[in-house]
């Protein structure tokens, strides 16, 4: 992973120097991008769960910053909020899982916990108790911890039901989408799964496989009908991540991480291609003052002749995504499919659906990739049909564009991963990752699956070619239920809106109303009451307390003034006064 992140980040950085050249926040962009790389690399190398969590958060945060990089766009702001909140949901899960693990094992060290003979390996769930060398807890906690990790993976790797943030995250710059939302960050979830893999029991792995399979299938069907170039790629990313999760679920640990690596390359490549195309469309728009969406594939077409290098790169990336032979995608994807089939061997009929769905998904992949490439690169530029008098000067761009494309395209081919282009078991990465879990037995699947996949994929490719380039055969009805289901992304966003967003907003409003009318009212009442009380006190203070004091003061003063009159300083007067008083005393004495 360390190598992978660095290798992917390099072309993206080079690409970005050209892509973001005219952006006014150029330096800020690179700050964010480097921040992301730092967090991602640290996430990969840390060996402590708490640190892992911290960098997990930082990765999410930098992704938030980059999605909202063009924060003047309202949609981008909405998208980064959505991504951040959905990631928070997963983070809660991870945090609670870490806390439970610490309670049970008294350590955060990943190696101690998850190594071959680590603490996890020594712990068992027995009789409703989760017993480990360091203590025991009720078994429910094990399930909660697993569910927490599961939630984290689902949120970060955009699996059903928390996948909706990823398509929206495409509001960010395309180079960012390539690095973060296709190659590295979303893979962090799978990576986490890989690190804590020993924790999962058989049943939990099956659930994992179901979710991955369902996500892969759902995202692939959605990708069939989207018109936004980057959205198609985003859904395809979700679909491929679903494959990885599925692989984890069926025990194809090494294949999963292998697919993670190969997927990172070809998806990054495809995104960079998309970036160039979008960039050129933007040029057309700005040069001619058109009001079009530069990301919509409805306006594109015929770019094959104008952007030759981009076209070749797109073809290579697309083939790798479909998983045709001689590409890296073939190696990893067939590995997953074969092992999925091997896994379902001897299981119940219902579980056989999983590998079958995966198979169908890979054909769907072939179809939407073909649709994308044919619509963008073949035929005529549809924009010319609408606005015939356009000035066009399209190029592949400078070496900053070409070099990353070439580099990644080379990485998408088989020799980098395996010298034998038809056998995934020969891949050095696969061997390196393989951890003795795989039971190796030769089966017919090794022969059947690749042939089946590729033959039907080729058929599907031809079909797509017929539909979108020749335009002679049937066109899909655009009103059917399935089409609408797919086009509206299975209505999941709408359901979320209705089920979560609206009640939360309603609750917020209710709280606001309560706050404003009841609590504020209470406070205002209190204010008024205390105001009156204060006024009363002030009045009492002024007239009663002060009045009393003033009265005393006045009395004392008047007595003093009265007494002062005798103090004339004249000796004779004093004597006279004394005489009068003595006489008065005598008179009184006589009278009484």
């Amino acid at each position, binding site marked *: 992973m360390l190598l992978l992140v660095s290798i992917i980040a390099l072309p993206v950085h080079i690409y970005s120097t050209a892509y973001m050249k005219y952006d006014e926040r150029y330096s800020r962009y690179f700050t964010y991008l480097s921040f992301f790389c730092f967090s991602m690399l640290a996430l990969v190398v840390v060996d402590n769960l708490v640190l892992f969590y911290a960098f997990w958060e930082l990765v999410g945060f930098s992704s938030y910053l980059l999605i909202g990089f063009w924060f003047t766009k309202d949609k981008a702001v909405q998208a980064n909020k959505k991504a951040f909140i959905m990631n928070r949901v997963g983070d809660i899960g991870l945090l609670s899982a870490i806390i439970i693990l610490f309670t049970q094992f008294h350590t955060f060290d990943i190696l101690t916990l998850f190594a071959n003979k680590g603490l996890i390996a020594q712990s068992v769930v027995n009789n409703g108790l989760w017993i480990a060398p360091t203590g025991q807890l009720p078994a429910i906690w094990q399930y909660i911890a697993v569910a927490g990790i599961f939630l984290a993976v689902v949120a970060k790797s955009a699996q059903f039901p928390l996948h909706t943030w990823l398509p929206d995250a495409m509001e960010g710059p395309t180079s960012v989408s390539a690095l973060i939302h296709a190659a590295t960050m979303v893979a962090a979830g799978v990576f986490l799964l890989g690190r804590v893999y020993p924790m999962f029991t058989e049943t939990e792995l099956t659930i994992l496989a179901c979710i991955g399979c369902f996500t892969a299938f759902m995202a692939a069907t959605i990708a069939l009908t989207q018109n936004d170039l980057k959205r198609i790629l985003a859904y395809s990313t979700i679909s491929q991540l679903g494959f990885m999760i599925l692989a984890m679920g069926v025990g194809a640990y090494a294949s999963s991480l292998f697919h993670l690596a190969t997927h990172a390359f070809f998806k990054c490549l495809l995104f960079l291609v998309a970036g160039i195309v979008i960039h050129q469309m933007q040029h057309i728009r700005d040069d001619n003052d058109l009001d079009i969406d530069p990301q919509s594939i409805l306006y594109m077409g015929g770019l094959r002749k104008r952007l030759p290098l981009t076209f070749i790169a797109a073809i290579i990336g697309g083939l790798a995504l479909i998983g045709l032979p001689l590409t890296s995608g073939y190696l990893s994807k067939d590995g997953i499919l074969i092992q999925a089939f091997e896994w379902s061997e001897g299981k119940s009929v219902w579980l056989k659906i999983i590998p079958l769905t995966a198979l169908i998904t890979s054909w769907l992949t072939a179809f939407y990739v073909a649709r994308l490439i044919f619509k963008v690169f073949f035929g005529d530029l549809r924009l010319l049909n609408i606005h015939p008098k356009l000035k066009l000067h399209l190029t592949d761009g400078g070496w900053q564009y070409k070099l990353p494309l070439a580099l990644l395209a080379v990485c998408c081919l088989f020799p980098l991963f395996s010298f034998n282009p038809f056998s995934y078991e020969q891949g050095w990465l696969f061997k390196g990752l393989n951890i003795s879990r795989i039971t190796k037995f030769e089966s017919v699947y090794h022969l059947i699956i690749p042939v089946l996949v590729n033959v039907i994929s080729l058929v599907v490719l031809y079909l797509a070619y017929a539909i979108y380039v020749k335009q002679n055969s049937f066109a899909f009805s655009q009103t059917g239920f399935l089409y609408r289901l797919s086009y509206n992304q299975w209505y999941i966003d709408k359901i979320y809106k209705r089920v979560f967003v609206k009640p939360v907003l309603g609750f917020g409003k209710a709280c606001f109303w309560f706050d404003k009318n009841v609590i504020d009212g209470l406070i205002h009442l209190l204010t008024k009451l205390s105001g009156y009380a204060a006024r009363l006190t002030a009045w009492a203070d002024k007239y009663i307390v002060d009045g009393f004091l003033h009265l005393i003061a006045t009395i004392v003063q008047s007595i003093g003034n009265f007494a002062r009159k005798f103090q*004339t300083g004249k000796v*004779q007067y004093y004597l*006279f006064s004394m005489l009068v008083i003595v006489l008065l005393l005598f008179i009184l004495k006589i009278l009484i």
Partner: protein
Amino acid sequence: MITLTDFLVVSVMLFCIGLYMIVSKRNAIQILIGIELILNAAILNLVAFGKHDSVNNSGQIFALFAIVLAAATTAVALAIILNVYRKYKTIDPGKINNLKD
């Protein structure tokens, strides 16, 4: 025959005249004379009552003492008046009101 009452009447008259002088006169010397009159009234009383005393002539002797003391007091008072005059250039007690608050 001169009775005790006659003495006392004279004495009261002397006392009242002295008191009146002290209160009404505007000259310190005259006030001093008033004080002397009061003293004389008191001495007269001493002599008059001395006749009825069980000890012989004690009243007269006490009177002699009082006269001597009165003379001494007068000397001191005159000295004070002299000093007052030096300071205030007047001996009218009404004008010396430094004791006023």
